[in-house]
């Protein structure tokens, strides 16, 4: 099957593999500890760990875009900020 029209590159493949691994990791976590660990955090509504992953990924995307728009193309600090943000989400949301 010719997939050249999808224009794959190593960085984008690595990006999607990372997302896939995160999902597999979440599935494994769910298998080990079923129920999704629902709790009410600082947003004052119930979230499961799946919700927290979604909020982390969506927030990280906006952190990267904001960094790119306001500061510049060096995104390593944006990545570090996103990791801190994701830890915060999983800890407090």
């Amino acid at each position, binding site marked *: 099957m010719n997939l050249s029209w999808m224009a794959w590159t190593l960085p984008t493949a690595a990006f*999607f593999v990372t997302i896939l691994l995160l999902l597999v990791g979440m599935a494994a976590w*769910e298998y080990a500890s079923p129920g999704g660990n629902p709790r009410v955090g600082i947003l004052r*509504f119930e979230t499961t760990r799946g919700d927290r992953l979604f909020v982390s990924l969506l927030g990280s995307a906006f952190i990267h875009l904001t960094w790119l728009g306001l500061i510049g*193309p060096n995104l390593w600090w944006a990545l570090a900020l996103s990791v801190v943000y994701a830890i915060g989400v999983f800890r407090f949301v």
Partner: protein
Amino acid sequence: MNKTWNNKAWFMVLPVLLLVALSAVIPLMTVVNYSVQDTFGNNQFFWAGTEWFQEMLTSDRFWAAMGRNLMFSAIVLAIEIPLGIVIALNMPKSGWGVPVCLVSMALPLLIPWNVVGTIWQVFGRVDIGLLGYSLRQIGIDYNYVNDPFDAWVTVIGMDVWHWTSLVVLLCYAGLVSIPDAYYQAAKIDGASRWAVFRYIQLPKMNRVLLIAVLLRFMDSFMIYTEPFVVTGGGPGNATTFLSIDLVKMAVGQFDIGPAAAMSIIYFLIILLMSWVFYTVMTNYDAER
């Protein structure tokens, strides 16, 4: 009692996952791939990194389209929500008028977007259109083809005509669910018409109004077909909303990389709004 967890049920959703993968995930992956590359066709791609994203985020054209889109959403919401409430309040609650009103209200919703666009394109024409010709005859210098203000009025008028019915039907559903006892109590207390609306009808319509606001905001933010058919994004770029600009960039100019980057930014905004919509709805249900 311990609940039994059986994760085998997840296999039941496998067909849907495959369908979503083919229809959404694979195209989305392709867009992401395109957004970091440049191409001149013939399946030849050149790495561009985050260049297109940076170009989009610092582009006046992108922010102008975003501004127009937000202004359009704000205007249609400011018109459609109060108008929908007023119409719903004045609709009959019983008798033969109910089905007549409901069917009349549902009619605009049943018309496909491109047909609505075509209707209004003809309707607004100054040579043969009822609206355009009539306005010209009474001395109003109306021409949506040349005048940006007239183009906006036409596009907003079209959206209000097409979608106010949705708000009306949602509000009407909220209103008919209010038990008569509330109105009787208000009458005994000598409540004014405004007091009945403010303290009985409006609180009872809260939920449906929330749905109406969120649905209309998301829908108006993604509008494409109707303004494209009526104005084609013009005159100039006066009615070029994000989706129209995106199509111009991708199909008209064949700037696949920047268009892909714009798609992803647009997608993320829609995704954020959808999440807010879902969260607000589910938590409202939980509170109730």
